[in-house]
């Protein structure tokens, strides 16, 4: 049976097993503390802070790719499952109660924000790569702005040529009223985030509707412009999704450091006042 599982499914099962064992072990420990006179809050708090600290080390590991410290992909797996473990310990620690006091509310919210940004990052990193591949040509993120400028210049050339050769202004007017704005900046970010192609379909539809007002020669240029519209849509999609994949860490990592700092303060205060 196990041999029919792919490597990834096997790994998922093993990691899940390890996570459940860790949770069970922690729960047993917590119970043994609860039956004694020692503080379960201190236990879960220490475990939570320690786990968060280890999770944060992943970022340091990334800066040392040439040191033999296990592969980054092994760290990612550990990061994912240890992250889930931290969430479980968090609920043990807070006892599913809402916090009171400003600092506690802030700490509670920051933890949830770190956890949610982590889960979101994981989901996006599993969904966006294949969408990026299937949507259109794969482009280097850094080159997208210059490609956009180039595309706009190409469209303007087509429009000029169309006006010169056909003496018809349908396409030029459309460019001035709508396409110029479309080509000059990143557009439809929200739709690209949720994977909707509605805006580009609407725009091509609108352009196709113009055919009836065009001379035959102008339609040839229209077809070229539609191709450019689609290319621009791919540029926007690549910029949006690649940007999210690149920059979500700019939320997750600073939040993690704030969490560690606040957690440390919280721990010190708890120790001081108990």
């Amino acid at each position, binding site marked *: 049976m196990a041999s029919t599982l792919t490597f990834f499914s096997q790994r998922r099962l093993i990691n899940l097993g390890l996570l459940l064992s860790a949770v069970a072990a922690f729960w047993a420990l917590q119970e043994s503390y609860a039956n004694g006179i020692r503080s379960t809050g201190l236990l879960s708090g220490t475990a939570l802070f320690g786990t968060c600290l280890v999770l944060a080390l992943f970022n340091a590991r990334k800066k040392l*790719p040439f040191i033999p410290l296990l592969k980054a992909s092994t760290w990612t797996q550990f990061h994912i499952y240890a992250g889930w473990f931290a969430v479980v310990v968090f609920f043990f620690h807070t006892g599913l109660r809402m916090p009171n006091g400003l600092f506690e509310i802030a700490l509670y919210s920051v933890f949830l924000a770190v956890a949610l940004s982590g889960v979101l990052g994981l989901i996006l990193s599993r969904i966006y790569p294949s969408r990026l*591949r299937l949507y259109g040509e794969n482009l280097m993120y850094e080159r997208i702005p210059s490609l956009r400028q180039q595309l706009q210049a190409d469209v303007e050339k087509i429009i000029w040529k169309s006006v010169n050769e056909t003496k018809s202004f349908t396409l030029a007017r459309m460019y001035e009223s709508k396409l110029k704005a479309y080509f000059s900046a990143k557009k439809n970010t929200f739709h690209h985030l949720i994977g909707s192609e509605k805006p580009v379909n609407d725009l091509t539809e609108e352009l196709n509707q113009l055919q009836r007002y065009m001379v035959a020669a102008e339609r040839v240029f229209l077809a070229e412009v539609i191709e450019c519209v689609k290319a621009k849509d791919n540029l926007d999609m690549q910029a949006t999704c690649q940007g999210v994949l690149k920059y979500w860490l700019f939320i997750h990592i600073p939040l993690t450091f704030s969490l560690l700092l606040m957690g440390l303060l919280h721990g010190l205060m708890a120790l001081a006042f108990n």
Partner: protein
Amino acid sequence: MSEAPATISRPQRWDVPFESAMGAVAVARILSIPPFSQIDASRFPASTSLPDILLNDTGLRSFKKNQVIVREGDYGNSAFFIITGSVRVALGKDAIPAEVLGRRQPEKKDFLSTLRQLWGNARYPEVRSLRRYKEAKAGAEHEKGDDTTAIFLHDIPSVLKGGTAVLTAGMFFGEIAALSRTPRTATIFAEEDCELLEIRWQGLRELRLRAPEIKQFIDTNYRKYSLENHLRETKYFKDLSPAELKEVANQTRFETYGSFDWHSNYKKNRDVAPEERIKEEPLIAEEGQYANGLVLIRAGFARMSQKYNQGERTASYLSRGQMFGFDEIAHNWNTKDSAPLQYTLRALGYVDVLVVPTSVVEQYILPKIPQASFPPPIVAQNKQINDRRDGELSTDVVEFLVDNRFINGRATMVMDLDRCTRCDDCIRACASAHDNNPRFVRHGHQIGRYMIANACMHCLDPVCMIGCPTGAIHRNALGGQVVINDTTCIGCSTCANSCPYNNIQMVEIRNELGEHILDQENRPVTKAAKCDLCVEQMTGPACVNACPHDALTRVDMQDTQTFAKWLQR
């Protein structure tokens, strides 16, 4: 500290000779020994005269009795000519245990120098130390052949697993590995104190090109001394007695298809439609014909294809050590049937094959094979395109690999675009392992969700090495990685132009202040740069180590099972 002025004289081919101790007297002495004495020196151009080749591309080496000269499995960049004394070839695979051969791991950075990369990397791209170049020129640093200078075999009868053969004064050895860019097939040690002339392959190639005497001498040598060895290492030939092996060797034909410098043609024809290109590939054996010989691949690659509707479907590719036609010959002999060849075999670029006639296979080989080891009988097949079993590559992947010649890769960078988040951690890791210079581009040919990135593949047949006049681009003796000696690279771009995969960049070098280093004529000095598979790093390839999403791997295209497993994970 500044290293100004940032000027050096433009590097030349023989700035750093193979052996600085080689002088006019030694050259005159070599020229008095046959076959060198028989060479017509006027056939060499003035820029690469015969004495100059001997002076700059060869070196005299002395070996003591029982000292190892070349080790089986090492990648050699040179051949040897025996001037005095004799040497012994240890016959058979793994004839001498690796520990006895003193195998060393390639030199890696220690922990401290590894850590130093964190803060010690250059701030500008492609920074080089001028001091190192100047020292190298003065001290004639060069790529030696094999790093086996001080290994002696003791108690030879007990360390040797198989027999030996003797080579005496006046013979060449090591030329196949040096010229075909493949690992040494045998360990050779000095039988008595002896003196050898080591010739780096650039020099050997010119000698073969311009002096037919040398070429003929080497080819005859091969038939006489290496062919039996090669056959002995082939599956099904192992159990032949020495007399039988000799008889089989005598009847074996050498055949060569395609051209040695296949990359130039390949580059030219890259835009031709695949179905047209396949027809241009030299035919070795054709589907439907009678199998009149067993084909053994000695060097290069061949495509195995089958007719499929109006075209040809590539079933697989063969490389060194693999055979073709055995199943049909065995089937016919075993069942008294007359099944024709099931596949067509075509040369992919350059292929060197040995053909053992069917009658010889029937007489000497098949009777020795136990019934249980025979291949399954041939049945009419109706395979569909993309039929694929676990552990096998699908047809479209095989076609893609063959059409783009990625089959050449021993460490091809494959990326799974459905897992790659485009985070560029791999590029950053590569840059930090190479003084802040990334050595690959996250871009390349795609098949479905997989991409072969533009990173050196450390090819089985590294054609990039063919024209390098100084031997700067060479194989690492132990691991076989194709690496560039930055000191001896003269920036001629031959390698970059030869690499069919565009995996070498020519870069303009700078000093530590970021200023371009110029030659006497104020032109920027360039050097070839590419992935070196992080030979010096403790972790191996930093890219693989750094990918957080299991999106990137390095694949040996000869190990299709591991690759298929990775694709099907």
